[in-house]
Each structure stands twice: as structure tokens, then as C-alpha cells.
């Protein structure tokens, strides 16, 4: 029982990280039909920004407030990746309208550049952030230990999920966003500035990747490939969950995350990857468009 709960906790923890990286992917893919291969690098940038914030606090802020660097790092990482996302959208993505596969490749080129830039700036060796003291240790209930930093990450993910839900379903911008998602030409006819919606969506998606990077910084050392480890799983959960609905992304990433942890627990980490892939392919036999889709009558969706 104890082992089961621990596995479940680890599964949920991995799921929540995958969820945080895949929300951004899912909304950009839903609105713009673009798979951003550089998303993993935005995660990496977010993680490095946490490190930068820590260095800044170490240099300029009295030690008593040193722990608050992490609280400051989250909005900072969001802001930096938000701006970078806006620039990338302006320079590259906006030129690739209706060319889904080309945009995937172009963003891969961007990711090569960003990875090398990270290596040039921060060195090839990984860097570490010191987890703030209020996140060290864990909560022990009936012999099951739940570490605080993982609990914190889950709370952070829930918070981000709430924000995204609020933006998507309770704001006028979200309404425009969903309209563009469902039927772009019709939304344009109704006077929605779809260019602006695209820009905002892409930037918000990138910003969320930055926040995800912040949470990854708590779990291990940061190097230029830190985003890559999670990104394949995130892509898979977008495929599994379908695009256009937040529920799909949540269920998709929960399924991928728990499946890989459970499979890993009973077999090995490598077999787990194969099992998860197998499940996804099997699932797509039943529903080629993923769990949740916006129903439409058009042929090419």
C-alpha cells in the first residue's frame, strides 16, 4: 500500500511537470496549428533564469531574504520567456502561416541555436540552484513521505492551470482565442484580430514553459538539455489529449505521466518509454484525433 501511494505520488508529480510543459504546447498547437520544437528550450531558459535570479540575490540582497529568490524567479522566468516567445513569433512563426510541418522544422533550428547559446553563456557543465529552505524536507503521513518541493510544484501547476482556465474560458481574450481555434476565417470575419491572438497565445505558451523551467530547477541540475528530457513526453500528451480543450491536456499528461511511472516501477525506465509509446499508438487506433477535440465537419482537422 505504502509503495503504491509513493508510486502514485511520483506519477502525479511527473504528470504535473508534463502538464505544465504541455499546456503551452497545446494552446499554441490548438490556436496556430504549430508544434513548437523550441518549447523545450524555453523550459531550459526558465530554469536558467531561476539560476540567474539566485545569483542576483546572492550578490545584492541580504542573506535573510536569500530564500525569496525563488519566489521572484517565477515571474521573472515567465516574463523573460514571454518576451522571447513574442520575438520568436514576430520573426519566425508569423512567416510560416499554414505550413505546420515547416514551422516545426524552423523551430527546431531555433532550438539548436538556443541550446548552443546556453552552452556559450553558462558553460557546458550543469549548474545547480539551492532549493529554498522552506521547500526542503517533506511531509510524512503513515510512513509515506511527500517532499515539499514536489508538493510545491503540484500547487504551482494547479495555480497555472487555474490562470490558463480563467484566461481561456472567463476572459474576452480567451473567447477570441477559442473562436480562432474553432474557425479562423469566421473569427476574422467577426472582427477578431487573429494576428494579435496568435502573438498573445504563443507568448503565453512560452511563458508557461518558463514557469515549468522554474519548477525543474528544483529537481536537479540545469544544463542545456534539461528541457529535452520532458519534451517528448509533452508532445505525446498533446497528441493523446487532443487539442482545443484544457481537459484533454490535463488527462493526456496525467495518463502519460502515471503510465510511465507505473511501468517504470514494475519494469524499467527504458521499457516504460516503449510501453507508453505503444499505449499511445494503440489509443490513436480508436481515436486518431486524441481524447478531446472540438467537433467540426471540416475534412482536414
Amino acid at each position, binding site marked *: 500500500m505504502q509503495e503504491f501511494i509513493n508510486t502514485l505520488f511520483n506519477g502525479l508529480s511527473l504528470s504535473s511537470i508534463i502538464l505544465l510543459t504541455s499546456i503551452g504546447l497545446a494552446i499554441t498547437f490548438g490556436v496556430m496549428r504549430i508544434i513548437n520544437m523550441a518549447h523545450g528550450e524555453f523550459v531550459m531558459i526558465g530554469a536558467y533564469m531561476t539560476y540567474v535570479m539566485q545569483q542576483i540575490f546572492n550578490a545584492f540582497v541580504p542573506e535573510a531574504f536569500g530564500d525569496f529568490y525563488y519566489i521572484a524567479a517565477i515571474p521573472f522566468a515567465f516574463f523573460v520567456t514571454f518576451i522571447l516567445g513574442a520575438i520568436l513569433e514576430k520573426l519566425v512563426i508569423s512567416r510560416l502561416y499554414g505550413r505546420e510541418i515547416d514551422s*516545426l522544422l524552423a523551430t527546431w533550428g531555433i532550438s539548436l*541555436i538556443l541550446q548552443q547559446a546556453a*552552452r556559450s553563456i553558462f558553460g557546458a557543465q550543469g549548474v545547480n540552484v539551492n532549493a529554498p529552505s522552506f521547500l526542503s524536507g517533506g511531509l510524512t503521513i503513515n510512513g509515506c513521505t511527500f517532499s515539499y518541493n514536489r508538493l510545491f510544484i503540484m500547487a504551482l501547476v494547479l495555480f497555472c492551470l487555474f490562470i490558463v482556465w480563467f484566461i481561456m474560458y472567463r476572459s474576452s481574450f480567451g473567447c477570441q482565442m477559442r473562436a480562432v481555434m474553432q474557425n479562423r476565417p469566421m473569427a476574422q470575419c467577426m472582427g477578431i484580430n487573429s494576428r494579435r491572438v496568435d502573438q498573445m497565445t504563443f507568448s503565453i505558451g512560452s511563458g508557461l514553459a518558463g514557469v515549468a523551467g522554474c519548477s525543474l530547477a528544483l529537481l536537479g541540475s540545469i544544463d542545456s538539455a534539461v528541457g529535452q528530457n520532458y519534451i517528448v513526453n509533452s*508532445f505525446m500528451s498533446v497528441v493523446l489529449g487532443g487539442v482545443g480543450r484544457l481537459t484533454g491536456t490535463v488527462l493526456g499528461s496525467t495518463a502519460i505521466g502515471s503510465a510511465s511511472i507505473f511501468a517504470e516501477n514494475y519494469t524499467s525506465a527504458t521499457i516504460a518509454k516503449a510501453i507508453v509509446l505503444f499505449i499511445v499508438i494503440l489509443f*490513436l487506433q480508436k481515436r486518431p484525433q486524441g481524447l478531446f477535440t472540438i467537433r467540426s465537419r471540416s475534412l482536414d482537422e
Partner: protein
Amino acid sequence: MKKQNICFTIIVLILAAMPILLQLGFITASSTVLFIGKCIAFAIVAMGLDLIWGYTGILSLGHGLYFALGGYAMAMYLKLQATGGQITDFMHIGGLTELPMIWKPFLNLPLSIIMIFVIPAIVSGLIGYFIFKNRVKGVYFSIISQALTWAAYSIFIALSPYTNGNVGITEIQTIVGSIRGDKNRMNMFIVFYGALIIMVLTYALCRFSTSTKFGKLLIAIRDGENRTYFSGYQVSHFKTFAYVLSAVIAAVAGAVFVNFNGSITPSQMTISYSITMVIWVAVGGRGTIIGAIIGAFIINLCEYNLSSGSLVDIWQYIIGLIFVITILFFKGGLVGLVREQIPTFISKLKNKSHAETPVKSKKGA
């Protein structure tokens, strides 16, 4: 279309001259010829990738897997040749006492060569059948092919008693024996010309299949999949067949590659290696077989010359930028640049100088 063949002939002639130049002393290092041999393998896999991406419009981000499958099949045979059919060191370390079943077919050459074709064909056939049957397409397929490579990579590392994990299969010679050193130069030439012949055959196969009705259908699928469906063609079968064909070509390329490289490692089946192959095709020019070959040679020769020493860091920036710029502005790659963009640019310049009279006459009409 004829121009393509002429261009290909020129490339083949230049390549064929390489060993002769080495023999005459114009090229000093034999490693250069070995490297060009590897480039031939890359050109072969690029042709296969072009068949499925440039012609059929399916972007596979997992061709490194098939490349490595062919490479491993070849390397397993060569390794057994090197050990004389005995079990290898890494199997000893992995705790195996006799040759595992999976290695047995690689004891003799004809069976190994059959395996180079059969294993990737089965893997790609199954994947292709199940994925294309349900009209999973576009980026969805790309993501799944990427995940497939990712899973296969970790499996190859995990099964280290059978595959030697991260290190891969090393210390192997070629199909005709050692090619290192001056004594064995004849062997090197045999392998080199053998690879060249395989490249010519692959080119002929690709040209043949794209110029027949089959090739036209692939283009039809790329440009209007639903229309092709409604015209009564079973699109998924054609897609699967094209996918299998390109996987087998990639495997053959892998087998050629091993002969020149002297080892095969799981890094040849990573996602980034697979996408590098896509970069070759994109830069050379998708949708033209010759473009794939040119792209593979140019990118690899640039990398060979630039990525040594202090330029390693800069190379990553360069390749990333080249790729992004190609995708953004030169959809047809180098071939498209020469064939379409430069002629239109020149005719625009010409029109500008004669702009006055034609515009006026049009208005008058």
C-alpha cells in the same frame, strides 16, 4: 528533369575521381576519402527521406532508427567476423555464456544482408500500417515517429549485453577486411566504389519510382490527400509502402556507413541525428532527388571543415541559422534557388530596365 541526371553524373564522376586523386597524391589524407564514403551513405539516406518527405509530404523525425537498424545489422556481422564467430567481450561482461539467438543470423553474409532489408521493413511496415490506417497525419505522425526513435534509443542502451549499450559496436573492419593503412588501400577502394554503386542504384530506384505513376500518386497525396482518397486510391497503402521503401533505403545507408565509420553507436538513432538528416534534405531541396544528395554532401563537408577546433561552437549557430533561413525563405532549398528563385530574380531585373514600354503598351490595350 534531364538536368538532374546530368548533375548527378557530374557528382558521381567527381566522387569516382577521389580515390584516384588520393593515389596520385593530390589528396594527402586517406581519412578524407573515408569521410566522403560516409557522405555517400548520408546521401543515400537523404534520398530515402526525400522520397517520403519531399514527395509524399510525410515528415519522419525518426529515420535515424532505420539508419541505425541497418548499421547494427551490418556491424553485428562484421563483429562476428572479427571475433571468428565467438561471443564478444561485452556479452561476457553482460553475463552471457553463448551467442544469443538474435545474433545467430549474422554469422553468414547473405543472411545478414537479408536482415538489413527485412528488419527495418517489418518495423516500418507495422508502424506505418497502424498509423496511416487511421489517417494520423501531419505533425501527429512526426511526433509519433520522434517518440518511436526515442523509445528505440533507450531500449538499445538498456539491452547492453546484446548491443553494448552506449558504446555501441566498435572495433570492426569492413566487408572486405581492413581498410586502414597504406597496405590495405585496395580494400578501401573496393568499399568506396561499392558504396558509390549503391548510391547510383538508389538514385536510379528513386528516379524510377518517382517518375512512374506511383511517384505521381505520392505527389498527389502530398498536395491533396482527400482528393486522392476520393479518386478511389487507398492512400494509406501507398503511404505505408513509401514509408517502408524509405526505411529500407535508410537501412542500406546505415550498412554502408558502418563500413566507413568502423563503429555504430546508439547516437546514430537519436532524435537530433534524425532531424539532422531532414536538414540535409531541406537545404539541398526537397522534392528533388538530386537536391537531397547535394544537401547531404554540402552540409557534411561544411561540418567536416568547420567543426574542428575552435569553430565547434559556432557551427551549431551556423547550422541552426541555415536551417531556419532555408525553411523561411527558400522552400525549395538550393535546387529551388537555382531553378526558380534566381531565374525569376534575373527576369525581374531585366523587366525593370524595360519596364517603361511594356507597361504603357498594356495600358493602351
